[in-house]
């Protein structure tokens, strides 16, 4: 049976077991990094923010800075720190939607491939699919995009997202609804364009 997040946190704090902390990081790395990646659209920046987030987390857990409540949900708390880091970054870069970063996301296509599983064709298809969807997600309004990323990438509940954003749960749900509906429209429009292009050819 897998130890809970809270059990790993206590093992790390009480015994200084960094392997327990590694398990925590590896357990949630996709969620946290996926959210950061969706927010900043830059792999190098997302890596930096991922590290910055955990540096803040470690300081707070060690009681050096900030507050950590061992009774709360660890991931929700970490996500609030990741969110602040992403917002700080966006403010610094002044690219909170005003300047879309399309041309260079800091990675080559080959960087997105992972080892040899599954097959290269499948990887290619997935990478293209992700890139294509990411472009549409980036076109969403910031508040819709953030709810979508938080729910889709980090698996926080709508209630937790509402608390994180300091809005009502209805507002969080409303933003998600518009995010999915707008995304659907974009996908349909994109598919129609592709179909027209194929027919013309």
């Amino acid at each position, binding site marked *: 049976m897998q130890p809970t997040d809270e059990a790993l946190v206590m093992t790390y704090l009480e015994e*200084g077991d960094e392997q327990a902390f*590694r398990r925590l*990081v590896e357990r949630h790395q996709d969620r946290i990094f*996926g959210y950061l990646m969706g927010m900043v659209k830059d792999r190098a920046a997302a890596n930096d923010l991922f590290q910055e987030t955990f*540096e803040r987390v470690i300081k707070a857990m060690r009681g050096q800075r900030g507050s950590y409540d061992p009774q709360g949900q660890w991931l929700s708390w970490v996500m609030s720190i990741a969110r602040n880091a992403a917002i700080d970054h966006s403010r610094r870069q002044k690219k909170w939607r005003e300047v879309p970063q399309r041309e260079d996301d800091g990675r080559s296509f080959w960087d997105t491939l992972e080892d040899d599983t599954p097959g290269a064709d499948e990887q290619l298809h997935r990478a293209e*699919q992700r890139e294509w969807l990411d472009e549409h997600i980036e076109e969403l309004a910031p508040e819709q995009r953030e709810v979508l990323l938080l729910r889709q990438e980090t698996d926080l509940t709508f209630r937790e997202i509402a608390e994180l954003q300091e809005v009502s749960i209805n507002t969080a*749900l409303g933003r998600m*609804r518009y995010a999915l509906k707008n995304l*659907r429209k974009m996908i349909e429009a994109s598919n129609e364009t592709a179909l027209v292009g194929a027919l013309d050819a």
Partner: protein
Amino acid sequence: MDDRLRLLMYLYDEEVDEASLARRLAEDESLRREYRHLREVKEQLDARPASRPDPAVVDRVVETARAAGEAPKGPPSTPRASRPARSPQRSWTSRLQTAGAALAVVLLVGLGWWQGRSEADAPEASTGRSAVEPRAAVSEGAAPSTAVPAWDDRDQLVRIHRRIERLRSHSRPDRWGSALQPVQRP
């Protein structure tokens, strides 16, 4: 809560009254269509491959956690060793300093007292007589009522007292008891 918002919660497996929602879906065609559309988008989003940080970044994070975990065990956070006892030499030095300071205070107080006393005696010195003279007079049997208390140094009173003493001494017979010798005129 609005049925369309409840649909989202159902779509993401969050707690919702499924029986009630199923009933609403059966009744409302537009709600069913919306659910279908939302689900299609979600399926595409779910199919996106996970994005993962570089392994080196995770290693750095874990290294930071290890270093932070060691910090409490290190010297800065361990209880400080007891302060060593003061050396005897330091103790004597400290005592000498205290004694010196006390002696200086005593000397200053004494000097002040002596100076104040000298000033009080100054008018007596100007008369050319000793300050103890009035007391001597009192002890020799003069009227005690005329004696001036030692503590009363009001000038007027002192002057009157000394005048009385002078007059008394002039009118007194020779102390040595011998008869007065007539002055031999050449």
